[in-house]
């Protein structure tokens, strides 16, 4: 499988300058997302997956700052846009029109004082897809229909508090897709919703992706979703990608001890278990991260080298990369 990249990130570093010190939230992350695939970022809360996804369009607020790294966006094969060099207005055009986002909590993502149709419409107006908010609000009904919103005419003139969580998230998806972006970044799109609606929304996302030839970057901590919906997976731990592999490969032959532990921690409903597996220890403090491999204090297989030297992300078999000294001769 040859990769035609849509986004390429090289050696990204995002630091947060807080009173407690410099939080090295993302410390040297590199990856490529191929056109048309579903790429997943998996990891525990606070491992930097959201920050990574936001950094793709430089959506980082103070005290956070992208310290270094290269981010490229390829609107079509062979055409390269250097995101780090875009001006504010070029970035604004990019966001929503080329790359758009779905956030975790739809209740918080919508402005409570405006009807849903207005928020869809103004997004289209901002990218000059319509000539006025009025026209935007009319077009919003069609947009809401494409995300299978029940009764879209009525819902377009509903305020966010009048909608259920699932409807709100459909609205958010509608807003995000209203300008036909090429890359959709879904940051835990179903975490804030009932489990019963999760599958509905994920299926909707996949259908829309197929219909429109979208590329999807899915951020989640739910390995079930990963197994079900992803093509390639990157596992993040404490601001680093520790393993990247096609999804079957990852579940069959996880290389990194963290990935192995993560998969073991998911209970298998078909087997009786005496006690839930967990990963001993806690996520490290990123102000003073452990030297060497950041996972070594919790790693059962750690040895001397892990404590001093940081392992690079290296390809060990076809498309299967890991950052671990275990596999180094």
């Amino acid at each position, binding site marked *: 499988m040859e990769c035609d990249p849509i986004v390429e990130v090289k050696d990204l570093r995002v630091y947060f300058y807080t009173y407690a010190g410099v939080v090295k939230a993302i410390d040297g992350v590199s990856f490529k997302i191929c056109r048309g695939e579903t790429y997943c970022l998996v990891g525990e809360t606070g491992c930097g997956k959201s920050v990574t996804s936001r950094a793709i369009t430089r959506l980082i607020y103070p005290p956070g700052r992208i310290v270094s790294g290269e981010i490229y966006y390829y609107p079509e094969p062979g055409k390269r846009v250097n995101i780090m060099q875009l001006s504010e207005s070029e970035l604004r*055009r990019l*966001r929503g029109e080329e790359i758009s986002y779905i956030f975790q909590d739809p209740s918080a993502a919508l402005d409570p004082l405006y009807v849903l149709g207005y928020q869809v419409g103004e997004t289209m107006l901002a990218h000059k897809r319509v000539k006025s908010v009025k026209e935007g609000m009319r077009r919003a009904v069609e947009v809401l229909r494409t995300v299978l919103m029940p009764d879209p005419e009525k819902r377009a003139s509903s305020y966010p508090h009048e909608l259920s969580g699932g409807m709100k998230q459909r609205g958010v998806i509608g807003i995000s897709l209203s300008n036909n972006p090429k890359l959709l970044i879904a940051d835990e799109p179903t975490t804030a919703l009932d489990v019963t609606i999760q599958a509905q929304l994920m299926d909707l996302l996949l259908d829309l992706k197929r219909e429109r030839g979208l590329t999807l970057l899915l951020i989640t901590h739910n390995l079930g979703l990963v197994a079900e919906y992803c093509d390639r997976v990157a596992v993040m731990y404490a601001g680093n990608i520790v393993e990247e592999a096609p999804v079957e490969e990852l579940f069959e032959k996880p290389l990194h001890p963290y990935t192995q532990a993560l998969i073991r921690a998911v209970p298998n409903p078909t087997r009786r278990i005496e006690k839930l597996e967990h990963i001993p220890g806690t996520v490290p403090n990123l102000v003073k991260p452990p030297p060497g491999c950041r996972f070594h204090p919790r790693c059962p297989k750690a040895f001397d080298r892990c404590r001093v030297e940081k392992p690079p992300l290296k390809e060990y078999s076809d498309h299967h990369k890991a950052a671990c000294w275990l596999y180094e001769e």
Partner: protein
Amino acid sequence: MANLSRFLVRRLATFIPTLIGVTFMTFLIATVVPGNPAKLWAGGEKASPEVVEQIIREYRLDRPLWEQYFFFMYKLLTNTMISPVTSNYVWDMIMERLPVTIQLTLLAFIFIIILGIPLGIISALKRDTIIDAVIRIMALVGLSVPIFWLAYLLIFFFFTKYRIITLAGTPEPPYSITGIPLIDSIIMLDFGTLVDVLKRYTIPAFTLAYPSIGFVARLVRNSFLDAMSGDYVEFMDARGLPPSWKYRHILRNSFIPVITVLGLIFGALLTGAPITETIFGLPGIGKFLLDSINNYDYLGLMGGVLFVGIIYLVVNLIVDITYAIIDPRVRY
């Protein structure tokens, strides 16, 4: 709309017990104070017994308390109550002083809005910088400075030293449209009167506004920051909205608490400012209430309190309605 009218009826119904409450309280306090009101009203120690007797009969002071109260309220509400001290109709006395209070209120409110809101927004946009610190300290000082001290400082500067303002009389133009010289002179484009009004009222209004400016600036700053830190702001960036649109959303969200407080401040200003009016010699509602107390004119005081109560309730009602207009989550 049906909801709105039901809401209005329900709210107006709550006005009645509230107004009865405040006036009855005033009445009760005034009557339990030891002393002989009839004698005082008749002219003190030298009053002739016939006059005292007549006052007692006329104001039914020999009747039970509840009957007195109902009698007073009836007379007040039908504007047939004559103040035993000034021999004027109570309601007329209040109405005569109202233009002074309204002018003071309008000018003070303008100060609060044009200074308090922008200072708060600047403070929020420049948070944790020197500018923010200066504004916050000024706001704190504004809240803590005693109004009488500030008033005399301003009088010293603007009157004693530079003679920019006047401190006597109340400018009255020869014409009357609304009865409020400030508004009338603007309507008639009579700049001479307007300048006179401003010379008389600007400094008292600023004095009166000063604590509220600081208060509003702090409130605007905090609610603006609150609104700015909402997730929806990040989502607006993520969908590429221009900054001006973004700030419109933020502003509208941050204004919900501000509107409430501004409404309450407006109501409070309309009910008179005893200290400011006394210092600057302005015959407004606040001065009227004070004078009534000093003259043991509790009938005038009851009228004043009734008026203040009505203003407060009406302003509160308007605030609640405005609230529901700007925030769709609020239901009647």
